[in-house]
């Protein structure tokens, strides 16, 4: 029996080549993980929100309501996919797919553990940011194609916000890259052997977390979908699983930015004892918990205030921080 498996494995290896196989298996695992992660995060969000708000959150389906999200997912799947008549059909249908595709790619380079990484690319960090940038294009497409004024306003806001907040995000990540001397995520984690970068680069860490919250459209920066102003923002016209894909992408994005934060600033898979992926996951979910906490505590910023925050404060601070890091490193080395 075992023989057959190992022979089949050998045949596959010969056919695809080892790297391609790892990639395929890795992506399948990643896709599965994305679903489970989203299910868990939605449950976590509702549960945490419930407890913050004097409620208890979901509790009926499964122990502590953990299966609630699955039931909701089934409901979403069974809903009719409505395409508004004046909408631009092709773009409207493509948008949720395009929003979801790029969130899978970063899983290729995320270092969950020392040997738990699909591929360690030497431009890993760039890859993540490049694909994170695609997200906004799909949102603009969806908002535009819906032919709805609220959706358009949401999409326009989203573009302005993402463009503004990607800059401090990248700049703060660059400070870390300079310190680690590499864009490879594994190398960045290795560079934090002694001291996590959050202690060396506290400003960059704060900037990154603020930028990441804005990048994932989370409160208090949830301007593109501000429900009290724009009904539901760019996804006003989306129903069923098309809406579900936006939702899935949002929660996966949360996971990705938290993973990148863990890698860049919190020592990745390293912990005080027993290094391993469990430390990585613990840190990621702790960060996400923080983001959820913030969401349910603060009111929403106004659009122009959000822009001011990015262009007048975050970007200059990030630039100064980057220059200072470069200068000090030049002097020390």
């Amino acid at each position, binding site marked *: 029996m075992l023989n057959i498996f190992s022979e089949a494995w050998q045949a596959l290896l010969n056919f695809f080549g080892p790297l391609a196989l790892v990639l395929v298996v890795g992506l399948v695992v990643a896709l599965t993980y994305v679903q489970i992660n989203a299910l868990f995060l939605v449950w976590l969000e509702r549960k945490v*929100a419930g407890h*913050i*708000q*004097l*409620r208890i959150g979901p509790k009926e389906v499964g122990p502590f309501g953990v299966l609630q999200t699955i039931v909701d997912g089934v409901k979403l799947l069974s809903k009719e996919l409505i395409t508004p008549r004046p909408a631009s059909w092709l773009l409207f249908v493509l948008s949720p797919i395009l929003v979801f595709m790029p969130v899978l790619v970063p899983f290729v380079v995320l270092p969950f553990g020392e040997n738990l990484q699909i591929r360690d690319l030497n431009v890993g960090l760039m890859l993540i940011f490049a694909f994170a940038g695609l997200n906004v294009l799909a949102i603009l497409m969806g908002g535009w194609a819906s032919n709805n*004024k*609220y959706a358009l*306003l949401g999409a326009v*806001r989203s573009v302005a916000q993402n463009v503004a907040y990607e800059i401090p995000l990248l700049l703060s990540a660059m400070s870390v890259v300079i310190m680690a001397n590499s864009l490879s995520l594994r190398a960045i984690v290795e560079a934090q052997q002694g001291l996590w970068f959050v202690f060396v680069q506290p400003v960059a860490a704060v900037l990154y977390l603020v930028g990441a919250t804005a990048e994932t459209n989370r*409160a*208090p920066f*949830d301007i593109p979908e*501000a*429900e*009290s*102003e*724009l*009904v539901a923002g760019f996804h006003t016209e989306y129903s069923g699983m098309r809406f579900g894909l936006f939702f899935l992408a949002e929660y996966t994005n949360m996971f990705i930015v938290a993973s990148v934060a863990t890698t860049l600033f919190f020592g990745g898979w390293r912990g005080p004892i027993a290094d391993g992926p469990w430390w990585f996951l613990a840190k990621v979910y702790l960060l996400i918990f923080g983001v959820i906490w913030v969401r*349910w*505590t*603060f*009111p*929403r*910023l*106004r*659009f*122009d*205030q959000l822009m001011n925050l990015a262009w007048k404060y975050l970007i200059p601070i990030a630039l100064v921080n980057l220059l200072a890091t470069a200068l000090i490193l030049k002097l020390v080395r």
Partner: protein
Amino acid sequence: MLRKTLTDDTFYLNMGPQHPSTHGVLRLLLRLDGERIVECEPVLGYSHRGHEHMAQTKSYLRFMPNPSRMDYLAGLMYNHAYCLALERACGVEAPRRAQYIRLICAELNRIASHLLWFGAYLLDLGGFTPFLYAFDDREDILAILGEVTGSRLTYSYCRFGGVARDLTPAFPQMTRAFIAKLRARLADYDTLVSKNIIFINRTKGIGPISREQARDYALSGPNLRACGIGHDLRRVEPCSVYPDLDFQTVTTNQDAGIGDCYDRYLVRMGEMAQSLDIVEQALELIPEGPIRAKGVPQEPAPPPGDYQFSYESARGLLSIYLVSDGSRVPVRMKWRTPSFSNLSILPLLLPGTLVADTVAILGSLDLVIPEIDR
């Protein structure tokens, strides 16, 4: 109604009647230049039920349940005002105990109304959590009012010449416990919301109303007091047993006050604290005695003539104008409700602000649309 002109870059946005922030069925026609508002026109009438006409078709007694359906968030105050108006028209006075009971319930209702406003306003600004806290507090009030009146939202508890039932034995203790709880909560709200930088940025300097504008547009209630005009009918034209009670009229600083959203917020929060004081004092002062005036007819029939009565409801000046021909059915009953005037200033405030400010300004005026439409 705004006409479509395609000569410039502006476009029209129809906000409502189904929109999460218009609270009910208000429709706003906005002309936008990007996100900036050029023009605004509120459209009303989606919740018109013809209460005033209903009043002309049935007797005073049978109209009793209607007033609390006009402003369903401060139903007891409308009920109270209606009874006071009838009593004044007929020259009847309710016993002291009944007056105190009514006043306590009305003030509790005012707190409930302001609490709901507080929650809904923060919801408009994107903070979801305060909404549920406010509802938790409001739930206590509804339980207390339910205990004494038997209903939770639309009350017909006050009667011509008294109240329907006496206080239950549990009432004073429940109310005192609630007062202590809400005082602690108000302190929490102060630290969590009033001092929150995002909240301050969203409300300070937004939608300012000058004193002259407030007078011109006949604003009333907290909206007027936030402009620095300390006009409160409970003090200016006291009815019931308000003169016996010691409380402050909450206004903003006369010099610094510019009547913006933040001032309106502070005034309402201050009024809640004052109402708590009123209820606490009234609970001490409440005398024993009958709860219904003796020898008043079941069906009131004011002598011929016209009568006018004003009352400070949670949202401002509530005024009832009655024309009677001596029968049990009114010839005309006109209700002047505060939200109509409070809404009428909106087209003045909005131009030049952003879409997000629309929500902040609209919410800060504390409108109840069915009360405008009636």
